[in-house]
């Protein structure tokens, strides 16, 4: 039972940080559009029942989001930014789109509050409960997250779905993997919620699905353990088989719709432009795999990226659609040194920024002090990866040493999250040669969050025996 003073302290922290969130940033409803916003609006106008809804050139969850929120009068873009072209406009109330901005803002705030409450619930030490709420909300309400809620892109939607998914996972994992908490109606409810949010999150950004591979690998490892030696604290074999098959199906469906959509083709051409065409040996590799590098293709080699010209070359498009992905994977395997070097340099780039680039914040509201604290919570250093690895290892070591099944289950979850994020980082860096910072945000943000999320869990374990 949580003590009254702890509840009062947590409420005080929540009220204070909510005040900061609501006053230090653009008012909720104010937004800035990008060129992608038009594509989201178009995706939202496709019938939900038609296959094209899932194979349009934008992820299905974003299309659904815009579809559900579109007013009868439709959307009208009145404030647009394109940092690549040095076009900046101030965020504004955009007719129709203010509903999307309000939904993004409110869902984001609710998601962070949910995560803070769930983490506090999982901790036994009252002081650590307060500290955890402070850390989660301090992280979630800092400029690096809050400013994105005013940007009409897929990132903020993917982010709040991730936060909700993480909160449900923290609540669910100990229920599933400990004998003391047998499945009850709450567990079933959380399982259903987890499944729904997982699907929405996977279809919010294309790289998200790769986290599933790590979860599936974990489930298969559990299955092997169950098969070799009956472990009563694990879910039974049927449940594990069902979960593995379900998640594999989700991954395959996502992958199939992604391939059909063709939205991977532009990033593929960006990779060809930046990673292949400048290097004769790599050009030879792709030619040996049948890629038609004609004079038309060669004429575009100095393009900065996002080149529409490639789409007009019929021969190239036919080859890319049929062999593009598999050939690029073979290319990465054929050049392992370069693949790893590119990954490591990409990681440095991914962590080099922590703010949205689409508008300049109002410094009267987002004061330098708030920006300073935000920078502390969202470090621009890839050392975060090592810190999270060490924290996860320490947490696992303590959990195993103390035999706390609830903590062991959370350790497995944090481990899956860590390796999943690294895999997502790898896919994002090699998936598109342009926009690495924005594309890797979905994996960089959880890694930064883990830095602050793990210490309360670790010290809570220490606290149990002290």
């Amino acid at each position: 039972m949580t003590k009254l003073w702890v509840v009062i302290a947590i409420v005080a922290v929540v009220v204070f940080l909510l005040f900061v969130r609501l006053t230090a940033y653009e008012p909720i409803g104010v937004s800035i559009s990008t060129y992608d916003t038009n594509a989201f609006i178009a995706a939202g106008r496709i019938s939900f029942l038609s296959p094209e809804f899932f194979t349009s050139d934008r992820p299905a969850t974003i299309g659904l989001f815009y579809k559900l929120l579109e007013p009868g009068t439709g959307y009208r873009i009145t404030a647009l930014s394109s940092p690549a072209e040095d076009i900046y406009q101030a965020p504004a109330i955009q007719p129709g789109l203010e509903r999307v901005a309000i939904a993004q803002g409110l869902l984001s705030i609710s998601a962070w509050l949910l995560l803070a409450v769930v983490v506090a619930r999982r901790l036994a030490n009252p002081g650590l409960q307060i500290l955890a709420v402070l850390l989660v909300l301090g992280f979630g309400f800092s400029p690096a997250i809050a400013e994105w809620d005013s940007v009409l892109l897929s990132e903020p939607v993917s982010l709040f779905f991730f936060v909700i998914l993480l909160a449900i996972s923290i609540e669910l994992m100990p229920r599933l993997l400990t004998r003391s908490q047998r499945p009850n109606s709450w567990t079933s409810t959380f399982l259903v919620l987890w499944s729904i949010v997982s699907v929405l999150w996977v279809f919010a950004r294309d790289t998200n699905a790769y986290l599933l591979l790590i979860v599936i690998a974990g489930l298969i490892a559990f299955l092997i353990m169950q098969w070799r030696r009956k472990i009563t604290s694990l879910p039974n074999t049927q449940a594990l088989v069902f979960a593995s098959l379900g998640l594999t199906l989700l991954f395959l469906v996502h992958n199939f719709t992604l391939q059909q959509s063709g939205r991977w083709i532009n990033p593929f051409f960006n990779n060809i432009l930046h990673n292949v065409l400048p290097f004769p040996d790599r050009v030879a590799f792709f030619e040996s795999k049948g890629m038609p590098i004609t004079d038309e293709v060669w004429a575009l080699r100095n393009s900065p990226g996002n080149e529409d010209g490639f789409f007009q070359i019929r021969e190239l498009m036919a080859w890319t659609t049929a062999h593009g992905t598999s050939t690029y994977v073979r290319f990465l395997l054929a050049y392992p040194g370069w693949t790893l070097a590119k990954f490591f340099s990409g990681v440095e780039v991914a962590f080099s920024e922590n703010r949205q680039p689409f508008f300049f914040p109002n410094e009267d509201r987002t004061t330098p002090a708030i920006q300073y604290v935000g920078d502390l919570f969202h470090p621009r250093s890839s050392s975060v990866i090592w810190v999270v690895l060490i924290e996860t290892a320490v947490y696992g070591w303590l959990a195993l040493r103390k035999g706390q099944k609830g903590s062991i289950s959370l350790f497995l979850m944090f481990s899956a999250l860590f390796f999943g994020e690294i895999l997502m980082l790898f896919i994002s860096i090699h998936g598109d040669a342009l926009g690495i910072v924005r594309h890797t945000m979905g994996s960089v943000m959880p890694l930064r969050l883990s830095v602050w999320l793990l210490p309360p869990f670790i010290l809570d374990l220490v606290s149990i025996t002290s």
Partner: protein
Amino acid sequence: MPYLLLLALVLVAAFICVQISLPVGKRSPSQTFLLIGLFFLSIGLVTELVLGFALDERAVRLFYWARGSLALAWFGQSLLLFLFPNNPRIRWLSIAVVVGSIGLFALVLISRVTAAQDWYSTAKPIHGQMGDLLATNRPTRWGSITLNLYGLITLAAGPVYLLFLQPSKRDLSHWGPPLLIALGAIMLYVPLYLTSSAPSLGFYLVELFGPVALFAGLKNFTWHSLRTGGKRKTR
């Protein structure tokens, strides 16, 4: 990598939470000194973070007092009280540490920030800039040095002394906590007298792992000794 300072602060705050939640029966004077030492460390880290944003005279003074002078001494006294809980001389030393801390507070309060504030840099750690920044008089400086040396010597020598007395010296698990305590003490001591004010990875790692090593060492040491019935001198 100033975020490591915030992480250090989060960890120290979490250590404080662990200490505060101890059952009343376990709140010995040793544990109380440890708790207050952690408070001093957290004040030091908070002021470091504040000074990383802008120069603030109160923050400079607080840093000099809490982190720059007292933290190590209070940790050292915590260890001494654990090793010799009933020794009247150690109790007198505790009173001396408390009186010294209060006296130093008064001395630090009257110290002024010098003209060096004009070239103060938020990008550099406060440790290396402190000497020029705060016009401390001789009693303040010597008080601070004495308390720090007292803490360092106690933390380095105390565990070694107990290990020497214990019969199972060959058991390697006995060596971990004392080594952590000594390492933590050195990590907390060395940055205070940095002459170079350039921030480096080493500086941030020391700031992060110093408190962790010291707390882990002190907690494990006391637990291990209690579990194995380690001989505590109770003269």
